[in-house]
């Protein structure tokens, strides 16, 4: 249930009920996502999306730091 996946914002929009939303790309799939909880997100940002809601903007330096740790593994 707490599954949340990162996706990249393509464009901003407003949903039928007036809430901020966005077209978000997850790999090859594009879905509408509610941005009410990340109103400062802009196109190009990666957001963590849970059941159609963006819950946080991905912190890119922190993500890069984790990837760098992965590179340090033997054979990585």
């Amino acid at each position, binding site marked *: 249930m707490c599954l949340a996946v990162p996706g990249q914002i393509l464009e901003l929009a407003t949903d039928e009920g007036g809430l901020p939303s966005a077209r978000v790309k997850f790999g090859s799939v594009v879905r509408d996502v*509610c941005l009410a909880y990340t109103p400062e997100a802009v196109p190009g940002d990666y957001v963590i999306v849970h059941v159609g809601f963006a819950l946080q903007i991905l912190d890119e330096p922190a993500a890069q730091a984790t990837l760098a740790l992965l590179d340090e593994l033997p054979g990585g």
Partner: protein
Amino acid sequence: MEVCGGQTHTIARYAIEDLLPSEIELIHGPGCPVCVTPLALIEQAVLLALRADTVLCTFGDMMRVPGQTGDLFDARARGADVRIITNALDALSVAQDNPEREIVLFAVGFETTAPTTALTIKQASTLSLSNFSVLAAHVRVPPAMTLILDSPQCRVDAFLAAGHVCTVTGTTEYEPISGQYQVPVVITGFEPFDILLGIDSAVAQLESGRAGVENRYARAVRPEGNPVAQATVDEVFAVSDQSWRGLGVITNGGLRIRDAYAQYDATRRFDSVPSDIAEPTACRAAEVLQGLIKPNECPEFGRACQPEHPLGAPMVSTEGACAAYFRYRTHIEPNI
């Protein structure tokens, strides 16, 4: 103990336990909202779904949890209008499209999901919908961790805390738990490497005699969490005691809809409250949820209880520990 069922699945899927030294054991926690939703509430959802004037909307995970009179797929087969949604706001569209019918959103989940339900209720109020309500079973993780630590049977030396719960709540809620019980709490993500980072921090703390809160999922978790989401949850819900399946009533273990939004509370709108329902006796889900036994130590695991015909919720949900073991740990013999 990894708290979240999503982490349990990563651990089982990538056979992470098999790669670890024997001194490190992963105890699987209760972090599967479908698994801890009380049987009586599932039965209430089935009863609401069977009302002629009602449409029940819920997430796919809830469909196959058996209640006393079958699951929600059975209810649908008996004529109930049950719709699977992937976004709580979709239930509002159903309400707008069917003004002559009652739309009930059956919403379960931890702190990660509560903001989505809260905003949906607020939005129903904004849109002045009079035919929409929520059967809510939202639970809170920290009180469950405290309950586990207070148990005399507790074997937990450190927690891998649920990353996406902390995405919403932040990390400060865990400071008192870590301090009071002197137990390391490491905020951990869901990729195999994230799990290893969590274990690395937990072991480093234990070996050096430290016990603190550490964040190894910083790309998605900020110390303050998401304050906008927290404020919305606080506006719509109040912290309350909550019954967890397998664990009993947990003080401050859940959320109830505030009186200001009472008209959107299905438990107050309808009087279809079933009394306490007995759990299937052969199922040892309660012990699995408390981390007291591994799924394969249940005599019914892989025998009478399989994903196709589950006895208990941990075999139903994609996040349940029993389902994870059944799906990925095929080299483990049942009941060893």
